[in-house]
C-alpha cells in the first residue's frame, strides 16, 4: 500500500445535505436532560449556574417493586440520571440486595466495584457496585454510603469477580472488606503506606520511606 499523504488536509465538505441520510446513533434509553433552569428572556450574559446536586428522576420498574417488597426501608433511594438507574441502600443490606438481584432478577454480571471519597462528609465513602444483566440487557448501580473505618461485607460470596475489584478498592481507598478471602493490596507494594485515591493524598505524594528503602533513590518524582 502506498503512503499517499497529501500535505494540505482535505477541505471540509459542504455542511449542507447528506446529513439526514444517517440518523444519529444512540442507545435505546431516552436520556432525560437535566432541566437546567433557563433565565428569563434577555437576561444578562451570565449563564445559569447548574445546581450543585445531581438532577435525578425517580426510577420505577419491576426491579424496584420487587426490591421494595424484599428490602423495604433498607433501600433509601431509587433514581435515574441520564437514563442510568441506581439505588442507594444501607451498607448492611448491600450483599443481600446483590444476591437477590442475581438470583431473582438475572443481574448475574458484576461489572465493577469502586469507591468515591468525600472527605468532608461524615460518612466518607460512596461504595459503588455496577451490575449488568445479560438476559435483560440492562445496567444498574447499587450504591451505599459508609464512614471511614467501616468494614463492608465482601461480595465475593455472590460474584467471584469481586475478589480483585475489592482488593483494588482496599489498595486505593483503605476500605477493608469483611470476609474477603485475600484482603491484600493488589497494585501497590504490600508495605506501602497511605491510600492514593483518597482526596487528602496529594498528586505528588508517595511513600518516601518505601522508595528510599526499596529503590535506593530519594524520590521517584
Amino acid at each position, binding site marked *: 500500500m502506498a503512503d499517499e499523504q497529501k500535505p494540505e488536509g*482535505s477541505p471540509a465538505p459542504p455542511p449542507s445535505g447528506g446529513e439526514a441520510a444517517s440518523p444519529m446513533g444512540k442507545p435505546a434509553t431516552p436520556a432525560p436532560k437535566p432541566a437546567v433552569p433557563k433565565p428569563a428572556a434577555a437576561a444578562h450574559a451570565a449563564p445559569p449556574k447548574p445546581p450543585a446536586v445531581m438532577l435525578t428522576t425517580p426510577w420505577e420498574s419491576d426491579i424496584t417493586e420487587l426490591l421494595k417488597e424484599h428490602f423495604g426501608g433498607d433501600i433509601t433511594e431509587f433514581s435515574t440520571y441520564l437514563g442510568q438507574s441506581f439505588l442507594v441502600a444501607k451498607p448492611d443490606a448491600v450483599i443481600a440486595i446483590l444476591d437477590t438481584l442475581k438470583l431473582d432478577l438475572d443481574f448475574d454480571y458484576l461489572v*465493577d466495584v*469502586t469507591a468515591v471519597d468525600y472527605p468532608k462528609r461524615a460518612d466518607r465513602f460512596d461504595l459503588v457496585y*455496577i451490575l449488568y444483566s445479560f438476559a435483560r440487557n440492562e445496567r444498574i448501580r447499587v450504591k451505599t454510603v459508609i464512614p471511614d473505618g467501616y468494614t463492608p461485607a465482601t461480595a465475593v460470596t455472590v460474584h467471584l469477580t469481586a475478589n480483585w475489584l475489592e482488593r483494588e478498592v482496599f489498595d486505593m481507598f483503605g476500605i477493608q472488606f469483611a470476609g474477603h478471602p485475600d484482603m491484600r493490596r493488589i*497494585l501497590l507494594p504490600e508495605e506501602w503506606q497511605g491510600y492514593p485515591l483518597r482526596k487528602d493524598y496529594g498528586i505528588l505524594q508517595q511513600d518516601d520511606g518505601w522508595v528510599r528503602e526499596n529503590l535506593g533513590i530519594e524520590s521517584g518524582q
Partner: protein
Amino acid sequence: MPEATFLDATELVINMGPQHPSTHGVLRVILKLDGEKVNGTECVIGYLHRGVEKIGENRTYQQFAPYVDRMDYVASVSNGLGYCLAVEKLLNIEAPPRAQAVRVILTELNRIASHLLWLGTHALDIGAITPVFYCLREREEVLKIFENYCGARLTTHAFRIGGLQYETYDGFEEEVKKFCDWFIPKVDEYEELLTNNRIWMGRLKGVGVLSAEECKEYGVTGPVLRAAGVQWDLRKAQPYSGYEQYEFDIPTGENGDTYDRYTVRMEEMRQATRIVRQAVDRIPSGPIMGKVPKVVKPPVGEVYVAIEAPKGELGYFIVSDNSTQPYRMRVRPPSFVNLQALDCMVRGGLVADVVAIIGTLDIVLGEVDR
C-alpha cells in the same frame, strides 16, 4: 511480597516473570507445580502502575484524554473512544454523524491491529515463529493510516470530546478501502498456516477451558466470553457511535477453549473489516465537531459508559462535581478483570500450557496496572 509456601513435599513453587518473554509485559506469576501439573497460581501485578485514575482527577477533562491512550496502548483508539463517549454522556451531547462514522472506522481498524498483535505474539509463544512477521507487516499498514490521519502511530489521541479535531486527509477513503481488500486474503493466509495445523490444534484444543458460567462469575468479557458460546457484544447489545447502522455478526465458540478463542478473534478481524467497508462507503458529510463549550464543566452527576474494546468491556465511571476536573475517574479495564480468571483456567493443566493461556487472554499490562 506474597509468601511462597510449600504446602506438601511434592509441590514446587516456581516464579515466572516479571521479566519473561511470554508474559507480554511485566506480569509475575507464581506457579505451584506438582511435576508438570499446575496446582495453583498467583498473579503479582502493579509493576506498571502509574496512578492513571489519580491523574484523571487532577487534570481537566481535555487534558486527561491523551493519558487514556497509555492504558491499553495497542488499542489506544478504543480507549479514547470510550473516554470521549463517557464525557459526552456526562455533558449530554453527541458527536456529529460524520465524526461518529470516522470514529467507527478508526476504532475497527484498531481492533484489527490489536488482534494482529495478539495473533503474532500468541503464535510465537506457542512456537510458531512465522505468523508474527506477517501480522506485524499487516499491522504496519493500519498504523500508517493512523499516522496519516493524526500523526501518531500508537498513542493516537485521535478523538476529541464532542467529535474529531482533524478532518480526514485526502485519499483517506481510498486508502482504507484498499487496505480492506488487501487484508482479507491475508487473514486466509494466517488461517492456512494455523487453523488446521496439527501442532497448533494439539496445543490449543481443550486447553484453558472457561465455561460461560465461569466467565460471568469472573466478569470476563470480550472474545473470551464469546468463545464460551455467549453471543454478547456491546456493539450489538447497547450500540454506541452509530454501530446499529452496520451489519456484522458476533462470532462465538462452543467449547470455551483456547482454540475457540483463536477462531473467534480471527472471525472478528473479518467482521471488523466488514464494518469498516460499510462505514467508509457512507461517511456522511457535515461538521466533525459538535457544540462543545471551550471549558468542559459537566453538571453535577455521574455516568458509567462502556464500549466493546478489543479485549472486552472497557468502562469509564466518571463523577462530576461541576468543576473542570472529574471528581472521580474510574476505569473498568477488561484486561485486569479477565486476568483474574487465569488461575481458574490453568489449574489442573500442564505448565507448558500456562504461556498459551496467558497469550489467549490477550492482556495488556498497561491496562491491568493502569
